[in-house]
């Protein structure tokens, strides 16, 4: 790109826009996979902290991870920012679901106004991203995460890697924005083949009866960017380990001018701050102190809980366990103390935000520095060489969790391996299956109670129950092979086993069972007057009966 055509102020603005656009893109994507409904408030008066005039909360860990991956660089040709969304089951198997790519191509639009048109189009693109993140298959999966699986994210910078998505993956384009230095494109490639990955990347030991084992194995490749759970739990002690006031609060008060239309005045209102910034090389870079996010997240809980590592199987739902391998020495987990890179843990107070800001401001975020791509001093130094590569080993090598659930005395397979039909997810195929097919085992898939008019009639054969829309009522009740001790009954022509199955549930109400021979509704109604007449005739008897009950 030729800088001569772009004023230096415009260039600075553009780089800043692209940087914060990238950060907001990551926030939108990760928040859309948290499994919760997101809600932010509109505010008619600009608070000065909302990039692109949109209320998108900044989860500090996510911003931190994104910045680490970017390492001071911006998306450029051949250097794309990717957010990988994957699924990890409680058994430890994982599968890539989506790759969101923020790319730059060479097609430049020299005529476009940076601080006005580009800014507004980036805002529009974020809105499109909000909409599109809800329509890919992973959204519905992520809304149902918790016990059987969790959704993880990973950010990397460099070349886009789509091989983990399986065959026939689809792509959806979110949008593009032309700028004088290139065209920004945002797209998503998503897996459609949700059959489980055939090659397991790591061994799973079979469950051992009666023993609880929680075994976390260190990540074999500590240099590769780790995966993080897209899930949070509210905690009592919300000591955020990352400064809560990010520099995303900088710069946001923008003014637009309408007169004359060709000029765009980009002014910044300086907000009140308690300590003067050490270095302000850029008038736009004003640390904003004491500005609280006015957004209320009414339906999402975005707070963090310090990890309780080694928690037993009772806490299946905690993503920390599934994310596995993330112990205190590896600080990239969303929950937990400790922090790599030398930045000390800070309580969530604005004052420390300044400190963090000051640390970052040692590296002037001037547009010129992006091309050098070697941040001289920042908290990101440690992982620069690794994350700037982009891909560091297959993400599947990252986590090895040998995680065996506590099992009951009668079960020779994990409790969670219930019928796949029970998992209320659109792609039930993905769930892991044991070697022996349990679908055919009537004890794991007990048949539905047969719909018969009378308990003595009806089929004594078990009906297959998998995939029925009425669902399986015996999910949490797993029996091993049922061999009743008693022989056939004399009175009823059935053995104890069939008797048990037969009468497990109360019989269907006869009025609800649809039978060819049954009367139609119309006939029922027709026969009512008759029935009423009969009852009226016997009214004296009924009254007498009622008397006896008094």
């Amino acid at each position, binding site marked *: 790109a030729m800088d001569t055509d772009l004023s230096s102020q415009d260039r600075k603005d553009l780089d800043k826009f692209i940087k914060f656009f990238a950060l907001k893109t990551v926030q939108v994507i990760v928040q859309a996979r948290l499994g919760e*409904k*997101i*809600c*932010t*408030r*509109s*505010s*008619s*008066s*600009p*608070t000065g902290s*909302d990039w692109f*005039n*949109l*209320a998108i909360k900044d989860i500090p860990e996510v911003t931190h991870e994104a910045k680490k991956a970017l390492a001071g660089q911006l998306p450029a040709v051949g250097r794309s920012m990717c957010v990988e969304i994957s699924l990890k089951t409680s058994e430890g198997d994982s599968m890539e679901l989506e790759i969101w790519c923020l790319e730059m191509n060479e097609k430049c639009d020299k005529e476009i106004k940076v601080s006005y048109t580009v800014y507004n*189009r980036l805002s*529009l*693109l974020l*809105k*499109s991203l*909000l*909409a*599109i993140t*809800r*329509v*890919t298959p992973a*959204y*519905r999966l992520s*809304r149902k995460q918790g016990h059987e699986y969790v959704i993880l994210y990973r950010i990397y910078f460099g070349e886009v890697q789509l091989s983990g998505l399986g065959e026939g993956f689809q792509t*959806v*384009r*979110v*949008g*593009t924005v032309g700028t004088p230095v290139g065209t920004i494109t945002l797209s998503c490639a998503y897996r459609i083949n949700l059959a489980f990955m055939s090659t397991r990347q790591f061994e799973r030991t079979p469950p051992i009866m009666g023993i609880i084992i929680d075994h976390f194995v260190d990540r074999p490749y500590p240099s590769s960017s780790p995966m993080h759970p897209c899930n949070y739990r509210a905690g009592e002690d919300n000591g955020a380990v990352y400064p809560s006031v990010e520099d995303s609060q900088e710069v946001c*008060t*923008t*003014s*637009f*001018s*309408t*007169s004359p*239309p060709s000029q765009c*005045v980009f*002014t910044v209102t300086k907000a009140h701050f308690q300590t003067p910034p050490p270095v302000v090389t850029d008038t736009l870079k004003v640390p904003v102190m004491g500005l609280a996010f006015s*957004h209320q997240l009414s*339906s999402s809980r975005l707070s963090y809980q310090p990890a309780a590592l080694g928690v037993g199987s009772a806490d299946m739902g905690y993503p920390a366990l599934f994310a596995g391998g993330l112990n205190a020495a590896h600080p990239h987990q969303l929950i937990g103390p400790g922090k790599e890179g030398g930045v000390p843990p800070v309580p969530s107070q604005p004052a420390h935000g300044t400190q963090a800001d000051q640390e970052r401001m040692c590296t002037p975020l001037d547009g010129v520095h992006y091309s050098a791509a070697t941040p001289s001093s920042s908290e990101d130094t440690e992982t620069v060489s690794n994350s700037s590569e982009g891909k560091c080993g297959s993400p599947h090598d990252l986590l090895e969790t040998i995680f065996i659930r506590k099992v009951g005395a009668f079960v020779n397979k994990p409790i969670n391996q219930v019928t796949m039909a029970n998992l209320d997810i*659109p792609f039930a195929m993905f769930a892991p299956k044991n070697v022996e097919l349990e679908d055919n085992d009537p004890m794991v898939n007990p048949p539905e109670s047969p719909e018969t008019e009378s308990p003595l009639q009806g089929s004594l054969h078990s009906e297959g129950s998998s995939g029925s*829309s009425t669902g399986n009522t015996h999910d949490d009740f797993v029996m091993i092979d049922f061999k009743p001790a008693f022989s056939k009954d004399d009175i009823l022509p059935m053995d104890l086993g069939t008797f048990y199955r037969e009468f497990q549930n109360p019989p269907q109400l006869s009025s609800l069972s649809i039978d060819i021979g049954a009367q139609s509704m119309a006939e029922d109604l027709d026969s009512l007057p008759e029935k009423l007449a009969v009852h009226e005739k016997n009214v004296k008897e009924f009254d007498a009966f009622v008397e006896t009950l008094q």
Partner: protein
Amino acid sequence: SCPLSTRCCAPSSAAPAMNCRAEVLEVSVEGRQVEEAMLAVLHTVLLHRSTGKFHYKKEGTYSIGTVGTQDVDCDFIDFAYVRVSSEELDRALRKAVGEFKDALRGSGSDGMGQISLEFYQKKKSRWPFSDECIPWELWTIKVNVVNLANEQERQICREKVGEKLCEKIINIVEVMNRHEYLPKMPTQSEVDNVFDTSLKDVQPYLYKISYQITDSLGTSVTTTMRRLIKDTLAL
């Protein structure tokens, strides 16, 4: 013809004016899914066509408020969408969609109709001529209501309509991404000719919603509703 008072807006012609781009979406839904499906599409369009409130300052500069968003889950469709966080806007859309749904259910309807969302600009004319409404974007959603026989079909319909709506959202985003004509950002005196400034938390482009029901004879019964914005009825 336009039911609005003649003082504020001349009738806009039935056919979209030149340079007004028109997009048509079609959905087949069950009766109880009509409202949610319409709201999903309308809210998605308005998400892209709403900004924060403008605050004009001296020297012709202005700042823009912040638009919040929220997730909405559908009850009768396996689907979720994002809408702008504005209760006023949501109420206005629900009112329009509710009337559309009632009309679809009404007698003489065989379950087919369409609802339109039109974005327009006002062009002030000198007295005695009334202002013109010039549409610049028109979204039409054609609806076909189906009747289902049993619960199993309904379950399939939930999923199918959900998938269809996902496609519609992608279509809408494609159109938005074309970056075609948008009204110029107005000066303070012109802002009400471009934007609806009556809401307190967001500022959509001026829009109006209308619908048509096809009766069983196949003829089209036009019911144009009033704009739901107080603005036009204000003095």
